[in-house]
């Protein structure tokens, strides 16, 4: 039985916890919940400007119903999914092996770590300029290098069949360092006694990687993959700077569609509806990924 005095203290503590949480909650509401609520409200309205004043007209689910007919939205979703899966898969593989190398190498450790991290330090606008020049069919370094070995140059960003892959390559170049950084931190925090035990048992390098490193790194890899998937789903600057979504809709991604509908065409309600759908899809990815991680942890 709880004494009134203790109950009172427990009650005070609980209240105090709520009070101390209140500022954080208020900031969260102001910066996250309110903008999302505003987005939801806008997505069911048509908003026009007359005499300098915004005119709101309720549109119900009209904007959402129009989405399946929107070719840019449809192609944007497909391209974004393709882009995310291809880019993140490649970044994980490359990032993992670079991290493995950087954690094992004895000499020049600082040099390798700095060199591998460099691309992530470059601002997006500079990356756009660097790669736009590199991909230039007439003056670009890539075609010049191909020419040196007798291969014909390509219009990397202008050919429909190559454009998306070319943008994926830029994303891999840009973001692999981030994956490298997270996985390197994970690798360096693995318990060394397990490796010593493996060595005593006579495990080869491959067996050590397959049966020790990978299983222990799986949670870190999974979190990195989820994080990168979410960020890559929002890709915008690389597409904006390199291709503008073209040729045709070959590199149209959903963030670019939102930008076009919301800002360029000033269709605030419709642009908000696309944003809501994308938000829902991203939330679904997070929920599924968290459930997967929990199941994995439970099984472990």
């Amino acid at each position: 039985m709880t004494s009134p005095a203790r109950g009172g203290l427990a009650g005070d503590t609980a209240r105090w916890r709520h009070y101390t949480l209140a500022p954080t909650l208020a900031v969260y509401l102001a910066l996250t919940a309110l903008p999302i609520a505003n987005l939801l409200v806008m997505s069911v309205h048509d908003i026009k400007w007359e005499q300098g004043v915004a005119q709101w007209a309720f549109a119900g689910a009209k904007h959402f119903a129009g989405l399946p007919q929107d070719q840019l939205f449809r192609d944007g979703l497909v391209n974004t999914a393709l882009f995310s899966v291809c880019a993140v898969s490649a970044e994980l593989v490359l990032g993992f092996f670079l991290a493995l190398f950087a954690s094992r190498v004895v000499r020049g450790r600082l040099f390798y770590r700095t060199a591998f991290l460099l691309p992530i330090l470059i601002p997006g606008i500079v990356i756009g300029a660097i790669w736009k020049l590199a991909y230039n069919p007439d003056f670009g370094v890539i075609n010049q290098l191909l020419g040196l070995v007798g291969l014909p140059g390509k219009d990397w960003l202008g050919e429909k069949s190559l454009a998306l892959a070319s943008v994926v390559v830029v994303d891999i170049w840009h973001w692999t360092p981030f994956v490298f950084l997270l996985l390197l931190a994970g690798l360096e925090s693995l318990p060394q006694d397990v490796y010593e035990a493996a060595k005593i048992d006579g495990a080869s390098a491959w067996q050590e990687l397959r049966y020790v490193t990978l299983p222990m790194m799986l949670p870190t890899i999974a979190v990195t993959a989820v994080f990168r998937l979410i960020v890559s789903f929002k890709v915008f600057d690389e597409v904006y700077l390199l291709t503008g979504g073209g040729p045709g809709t070959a590199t149209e991604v959903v963030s670019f569609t939102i930008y076009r509908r919301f800002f360029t065409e000033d269709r605030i309600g419709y642009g908000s509806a696309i944003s809501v759908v994308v938000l829902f899809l991203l939330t679904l990815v997070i929920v599924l990924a968290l459930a997967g991680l929990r199941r994995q942890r439970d099984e472990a």
Partner: protein
Amino acid sequence: MSTLTAMPRTRRWAALATVALLASVPAAALGQKLAPITVVINQSPWFGGFAKVVEAYEKETGNKVNLDVNPFAGSAEKQRNSVRAKEGQFDLLVMNSTWLAEFYHGGFLVPLNEIDPGFKLDPQVINYDDTAYWDPKTKTNNSKTGVVYGVPINGNIGVLYYRADLYEQAGLKVPTTWDELLANARKLHNPPNVYGMVLRGARSASDISYDWMPYLHSYNGAIFKDEKNGDFTVTLNSPEARKALDMYLALAKTAGPPNPGSYGQAQVIQALVTGKAAHGTPVIAAWSQMDDPTKSAVVGKMNIAVLPRGPGGQHAPTLGHFIGAIPKNIPKDRQVAALAFMKWFQTYDAQLKYAQAGQPPIRKDVYGADFGKKPEFRWMKAMVDSAPYPRMMYRVPEGAQIVGVLELRLNQAMIGERTSTDALNTAAAEIHEIMRKAGYKTGRLPDLK
């Protein structure tokens, strides 16, 4: 006793005379500065010339002008955000013809006579299809029924750039029709060294739609049946439009680079200044780069002419000009300062400086100035020749959506994803839907077969 009455009589009169004299002198002449203003503008090929004129204004008047320079699409968005705020950030909006309608229809701008009842556009300022005037009642650009809302900042239009040296070598005549241009371009097409014709075939905020519009209009086609008189029946899928698009595609495919669908204006200018293109139709503002030895490998070799026309049609360069206007939502002192800049900008001397910086002046009389006869100003003749023909692309606030449709469907035709017939039918259906939803009197032609 006041200080003045305490003075001896002669000194008192002298003091009063000085005050009267000071009051009669313009503030600028005394170095009294107006409020600093911020101009929101885009980084176009003509921006360098504008910046020089702004420098001259600051030097001459002592007034401060800040330039907020942005990419083309970014400038429109910044202007939109500013005019919708409680108090605007920008005092002078440099608006392209593609987003003028949105700002006029939205009621964001102040008539210039509300700031200064005596203000009027100088009669020498070029009219640019009445786009500096707005009639809020009829919602049209009309210099007779409307009032002045802006001052043209740049008379940008598309012109034909051609390599005069190659023309001379091949004994070619400057083309006046698209067929003649096609023949000349094919003759000079020598890939990969020189492409006969580079077009702005890319899909962007405004590339292929702007580039193709002179073909459409000069083949007697149009997006709408009679936009000026309120008939928004979509006529984009007409036989004339198909002929115009087929000509455009023929130029791109038989005399252009391998992937013309990825060339925006920057790539077209790059191809011209590096000597990789025999023809191109970028805007006149790009001219300043052609004779700049730090940027061009074809100094003195390029010339320009009025854009060709279709069979039986008129020349029809599209207006890509800019109007400077003042938003409602800024304090009066900043409105006054912004108008002071525009009054100065439309003067002969200011426009002379603008032209000497290689940019198309907005005054007719500057085109007649003596310096225009010098070889480096040979672009001025093409502007004079083009003067009777420029046309607006559209005049409705839904223009950005229409351009979005055109950019995608025309680019799909350019890259071979759709036939010209399919591209025009699809675009016409989509534009019709935009206009129907926005409540216009509209309809559309039956699909092209």
